[in-house]
């Protein structure tokens, strides 16, 4: 049953979000702290464990894969609902700091990745 795969995904999603909510409360921050990240970790660990036990059937996997394949279409829908005009018109400070931070982050990423490569050699 494909729905079992989707149900497992849903269970991990909520398990992660609950942790994120608890962390948010703990730090007195409105919002979910890294809940999706924890959900991903749970999902990786659970599916890995099920695979080893041969409990994860092709049917389950097909249910999960359907959602994975919807990911890109969802991203496209997501960008189409952004407040693009505000981002462009709302003032130079947002435009400049957003742009500079991004460009400098690229430089930093390049630096970290090359460090990583040296480490590997």
């Amino acid at each position, binding site marked *: 049953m494909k729905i079992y795969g989707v149900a497992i*995904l*849903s269970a*991990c*999603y909520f398990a992660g979000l609950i942790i994120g909510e608890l*962390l948010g409360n703990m*730090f007195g*921050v*409105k919002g979910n*702290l*890294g*809940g*999706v*990240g924890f*959900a*991903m*970790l749970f*999902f*990786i660990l659970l*599916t*890995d464990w099920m695979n080893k036990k041969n409990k994860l059937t092709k049917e389950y996997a097909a249910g*999960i894969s359907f*959602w*994975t394949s*919807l*990911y*890109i*279409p*969802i*991203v*496209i*829908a*997501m*960008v*189409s*609902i*952004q407040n*693009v*005009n*505000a*981002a462009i018109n*709302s*003032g*130079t*400070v*947002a435009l*400049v*700091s*957003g*742009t*500079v*931070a*991004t460009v*400098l*982050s*690229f430089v930093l*990423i*390049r630096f*970290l*990745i090359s460090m*990583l490569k040296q480490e590997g050699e």
Partner: protein
Amino acid sequence: MDAVYQMFLKNGFVLSFLVVGIIMLLTQFISQKILRNKIPGVALAIALGLVLASFGGKTGITDIPLFSGMALLGGSMLRDFAIVSTAYGASIVEIKKAGWVGVISLFVGVFFNFIVGVAFAMLFGYADPGDIATLASGTCTFIVGPITGNAVGASSEIITLSIAAGVVKVLIVSVATPLFKNIVGIESKTSAMVFGGVMGTVSGVSAALASINPKLVPYGALTATFYTGVAAILCPSVFYPILKWILMQ
């Protein structure tokens, strides 16, 4: 005619599948036949999505009633659910391998972006520590701007501005990363984790990785979601008090 329009209105969510399908069909065609695969179709589709968003207002294209269904398809619920699903088949070994680099890149990324945000906020004449911290938090990622803004009691103009800084980041990351992937060096799963950890914007990072190589999405998305978590803790509760203390001196 009106009956047909009403029918589309009533079935907005189902219509959104058709709309996104057409966007992808169109951009795949342009990418393969006209641009000969020089720019990935997904990158084009994202760019087209942004253009469509500019026809709407605050909530992008959904401000046009016909496209209201896009709000559900592109909203955070389905986005996060689909992101978690991409973790299926992600290798635990790879994640462990990037473990310490991933953690370092998270903290370095949050701190670094916050500092850049502070510098520009001050350069543009903002003096109130709450305003500066809110703008800097938005520079980290647009979800954290309002979190810090609410915590420090910033005005709604400042909060909007901080979100805008984050959205600018999303736009640049989604569109520019696929073009510069070789220069930046994003090719392996570990480098995708560094990318997500430093850049932080979940939407931008996952959109960029989707057009570079969909297999890299879970690795970048994983660190990027933790970035949001770390930034949401550090910006209002650690960086803001420190910033306030420094500015009081």
